[in-house]
């Protein structure tokens, strides 16, 4: 199914870049979500409270975007994402993502947006690696297994 939506994708990206800029200039922190979430537990005293404020903002912002975007951009569907994964699948893949991003020290935001923006060699390697393994995984699931 072809659902390429270049306008909303670019606009969404620009907003994410703005969010990243604010967190860096005001808080001095990198908007790497696996790091922010991974460092939130166990709860430590001091300046770690910002992590919860950032993480709480994500679902609120997603909801605001969901409500506002379809009216502004016709290419954005007004339907909720459909998730068809079983509980066991959700838990198994959640563990893979949690472990992988911790050991590899970053995800699509930390390495993908921030690291590439900083021209970090580590991030170029990380992004290249997870893009390739993810594409291979999807190829196997979509075209080999099924």
């Amino acid at each position, binding site marked *: 199914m072809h659902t390429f939506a270049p306008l909303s994708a670019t606009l969404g990206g620009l907003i994410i870049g703005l969010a990243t*800029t604010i967190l860096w200039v*005001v808080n001095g922190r990198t908007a790497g979500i696996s790091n922010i979430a991974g460092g939130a537990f166990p709860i430590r005293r001091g300046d770690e409270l910002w992590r919860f404020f950032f993480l709480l*903002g994500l679902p609120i*912002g997603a*909801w605001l975007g969901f409500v506002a975007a379809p009216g502004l951009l016709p290419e954005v569907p007004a339907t909720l994402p459909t998730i068809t994964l079983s509980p066991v699948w959700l838990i198994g893949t959640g563990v893979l993502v949690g472990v992988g991003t*911790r050991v590899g020290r970053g995800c699509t935001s930390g390495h993908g947006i921030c690291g590439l*923006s900083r021209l970090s060699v580590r991030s170029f390697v990380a992004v290249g690696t997870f893009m390739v393994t993810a594409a291979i995984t999807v190829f196997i699931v979509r*075209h080999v297994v099924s």
Partner: protein
Amino acid sequence: MKRATVSLISAAVSGILFGAGLSVARMTDPQKIWNFLDVAAIPSGGWDPSLAFVMIGGIAVAFFGLRLDRWFRLGRPLAGPAFIKTSRTKVDLPLVAGAAVFGIGWGLSGFCPGPAIADLGLVPQDVYLFVIAMVAGSWVAGQILEWTERPRESTTTSAATSSAR
């Protein structure tokens, strides 16, 4: 207003914007992620390059945003103690192995950490298990990393030798 208060408001605003950006770009939908990662669909014209546009848009702003501290010679952030970023520069095995494992989980689920947490605001009943498992996995991996990176002098000589590659 106190700096601590400003930093929390700023973190919340940043999170809200980040979540809104993901939502506007529909990165909250695993189907979009799969349609991007499914490169076998390129020849048939069914490939969805949206995710690449999100990354390009994000980098186009962050490329400048993450350099503002240097350009404006800010000694410290507007409301934070210091600019904190990793000092790591070496490409090592954990980086590649971790990224590889993350990619497999991403491909199998269509979720990376940001969209999964953002989806708690849209379809919480469908993603909460993923988010809990992700945070738990990260915590356990963090404990193991901390343990393996601890200085070796406390362990016995034989154990230190055998585990030191």
